[in-house]
């Protein structure tokens, strides 16, 4: 008999309108990394939330070391040594790293916090597992990667032995992912067992021992990673073969859609400019990709372009119209669509129904409103069409509250809304973050299709594979400046990598440093 530390047997969980988990069995061996794979909305987060005590299953049992346990809430889970890093982090933004780590398990002496020993313990842990954190920094000031390390430290501090990672890599840079994989291996050596959700098959192949596949709430099976390959896994997951996309010919014309001249955007974190004198053009019929390591000014560039943040200087022209000082609404109407980086902050009104989220950029247009009155009929019709076209899955269709949707389907909703605006320029920031391979394929196809229709696509991506797969032209950004312009067909991972870390700068971009701008 094998030695299972956790057994989830015949778990069923229903939400209004969907069976999120239907008779799923998952067995976790002690000391293994067990991956959980499945399409968006397949029920992965739900299953893990059940193990962590956030939901109670309608049916089924959970065993730990062969004994049935009753996990009613996260405290019970914690007592059983189960910890979880959620898909969307749950840290208190205004607290420091240390405060977040000890939150809820504060060591006290006569009611007073005794942070000295804790501090020592946390520092020891972070050194032991090589989890670099800035212990006194506030969460709002640190990178996503570090936030994740804080979440991991939180589990280790509580001496959890079963660690659940819900899509930990979706928000990380490739470098950070590498690091996380290393950390996970170290954790296993230290006797922990890991449940790991990811949509990225190569990650699963490289780090995990076994993988359980879910599809539409059902368990499809568990396989040894040694005995399988990427193609078989993706087929198990979506029930069909995934073909790579055919990018086709670059159809860039001479029509300039977006023109950015000498853009300077201040940084919120440091004194220097986040975007320092950048100029480029997006032409009709091309996908221009801005590659770079996170934090080199890509986000600020987008905020500056789209009007979400004030720029210091520079000029932005969209379809021959100077939009530098225009309102966001005017920019949108001129022809700008934007798939934002932070879907919860900017992309969705989480407490609104799906239909209102899908019409967030349309509700004010004639037809959607008549004489200032919202036309519900139209909103419903429009959103139902998008739901169908973009295969947005949710429990109650157009009336689902966005908050209750799975992460991937939330993203699909945003993409549907933005692409449907028929804008000439589509700014897509990490558009496939958190999506399953099937959905990624669809998004990529859609982006290429939009390009072929003569639109300009500005893609900001941290994933080199995506960059090389679908872009027609690549600009590499380093330290607030563009350091290289590359042709995806002529370049390699290695070459882009060198530019991304600032080891190389193309000559034509060196020149721009000389003239001082005022």
């Amino acid at each position: 008999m094998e030695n299972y530390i956790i057994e989830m047997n015949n778990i069923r969980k229903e939400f209004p309108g969907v069976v999120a988990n239907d008779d799923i069995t998952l067995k976790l061996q002690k000391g293994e990394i067990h991956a959980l794979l499945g399409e968006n909305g397949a029920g992965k987060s739900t299953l893990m939330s059940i193990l962590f005590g956030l939901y109670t299953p309608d049916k089924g049992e959970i065993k730990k070391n062969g004994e049935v346990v009753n996990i009613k809430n996260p405290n019970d889970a914690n007592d059983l040594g189960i910890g979880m890093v959620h898909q969307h982090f749950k840290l208190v933004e205004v607290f420091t790293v240390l405060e977040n780590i000890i939150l809820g398990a504060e060591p006290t002496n006569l009611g007073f916090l005794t942070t000295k020993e804790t501090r020592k313990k946390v520092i020891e842990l972070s050194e032991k597992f090589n989890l670099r954190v800035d212990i006194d920094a506030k969460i709002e000031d640190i990178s996503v990667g570090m936030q994740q390390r804080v979440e991991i430290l939180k589990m280790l501090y509580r001496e959890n032995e079963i660690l659940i990672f819900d899509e930990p890599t979706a928000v990380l840079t490739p470098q950070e992912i590498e690091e996380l994989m290393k950390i996970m291996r170290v954790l296993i050596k230290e006797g922990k067992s890991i449940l790991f959700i990811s949509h990225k098959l190569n990650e699963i192949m490289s780090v995990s021992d076994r993988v359980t596949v879910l599809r539409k709430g059902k368990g499809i099976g568990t396989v040894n990673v040694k005995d399988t390959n990427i193609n078989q896994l993706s087929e198990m997951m979506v029930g069909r073969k995934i073909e790579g996309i055919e990018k086709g010919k670059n159809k860039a014309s001479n029509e300039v859609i977006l023109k950015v001249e000498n853009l300077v955007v201040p940084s919120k974190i440091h004194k220097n400019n986040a975007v320092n004198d950048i100029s480029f053009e997006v032409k009709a019929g091309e996908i221009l990709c801005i590659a770079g390591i996170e934090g080199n000014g890509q986000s600020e560039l987008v905020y500056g372009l789209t009007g979400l943040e004030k720029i210091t200087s520079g000029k932005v022209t969209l379809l021959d119209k100077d939009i530098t000082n225009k309102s966001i609404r005017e920019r949108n109407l001129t022809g700008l669509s934007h798939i934002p980086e932070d879907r919860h902050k900017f992309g969705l009104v989480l407490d609104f129904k799906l239909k209102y989220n899908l019409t967030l950029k349309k509700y004010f247009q004639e037809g959607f409103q008549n004489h200032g009155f919202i036309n519900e009929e139209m909103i419903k019709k429009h959103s139902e069409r998008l739901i169908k076209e973009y295969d947005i899955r949710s429990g109650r269709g157009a009336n689902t509250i966005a908050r209750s949707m799975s992460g991937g389907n939330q993203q699909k909703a945003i993409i549907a809304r933005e692409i449907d605006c028929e804008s000439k320029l589509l700014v897509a920031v990490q558009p496939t973050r958190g999506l399953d391979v099937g959905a990624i394929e669809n998004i990529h196809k859609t982006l290429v299709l939009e390009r072929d229709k003569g639109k300009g696509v500005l893609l900001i991506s941290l994933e080199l594979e995506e960059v090389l797969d679908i872009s027609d032209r690549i600009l590499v950004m380093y330290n607030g400046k563009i350091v290289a312009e590359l042709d995806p067909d002529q370049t390699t991972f290695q070459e882009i990598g060198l530019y991304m870390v600032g080891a190389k700068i193309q000559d034509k971009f060196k020149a721009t440093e000389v003239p001082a701008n005022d």
Partner: protein
Amino acid sequence: MIDFKFWKKSSKTDKKDNKDKEYAFLSAVISIVVGLLVAIMLLFLLELVAPNSDFSKPILGIKKYFTYSFTSTSTFFKIFYNAAPLMLTGLAVGFAFKAGLFNIGATGQYAFGAFFALVAAILWQFPWWAALLVSIVAGAIWGVIPGLFKAFFNINEVITSIMLNWAGLYLANLLFYNLPAMHTVLPNRTDNLAFANPSAILPNFGLNQLLNTSYINIGIIIAIVVAVIIYIVLEKTVFGYEIKACGANRNASLFAGIKTKSTIIFTMLISGGLAGLAGGIVYLAGTVEFTVESHLLAMGFNGIPVALLAYSQPLAIIATSIFIGFLESSGSGLQGLYSYEMTSVILSVIIYFSAFALIVGHFIKKILKRRKNSKNDQDNETSSDLGIVPEAKPRDDEQIDQKEVVE
């Protein structure tokens, strides 16, 4: 042409929406019952500690309390007389809640509106409707100031509006002293409208004489019409959609191109106008005069529980304000048995314990749901779209989870 179809419920009503409404209604009713029970317990407790306990006194008190409003036309119509301004201040607070703003300054806007309604009536000899308009404008001006500070400098509206409450009241007092024409009879009290300007008294269509009460006037009708208008604005119009979007996620609203600054400003403008109108309706009834006050007027604050109990829903505010109007009117039934102060205490206990029970109930429900999450109890967004004080409750599941681990 205006599309009148907005009246129709679009599509078949959603089962869960109804469940939410049922839940909201039930919890409001239960909260009120809790408030009443606490007040009754208090009465018995008082008797227990009194030197010569007489337990028939609280029983008689309760009986009188609940029947008093139905003993005469005067006491009966006083319910609605009380309800009208409560409804408007409740709407003021509830409307701002929807935009994620906590207008705790309704009392200052109310005082401002009241005073300028009387200035218009007595000094300018305006007719009642024009004086009411003046009260709206005055309240709106006082309400928009915190809105401007919030929009342009991101200064919390709670802080500015608390300060403006006092500033508003004392400014009204100051103006009062400097306008001797407003108080020719008594030094601290405006002249009675019946002498100063009868045309400024809210019309009652002769029902006053017919029903033999001075507490009937057009105020309650105006308040109900305003509530319906606010309902339509919030639920059916583009402006209402923008207000709710701003309240639920200001960043996403900005992203969508909504002018969040002007939405905040307009919301506070309207909210202030509603509170100002409440002041106008009270002081143009001809039943009370404006006196120099050194305390903030309670009316503006009572709008908060009215809005809370109604989950900020305009139509529900009609009901909750009438209920609280009833409680206020019934207070006089205790005269003779209990002191005036005691009556106020009882009334406050009922109102505030109801609101308290409602909030506690919310948290209990949220926590229960996490714990139990039984089959028919998964709607984890019930409370989020109710629009209660956004700042006061964890808006994200995140914080709740945080709390749970804390224990």
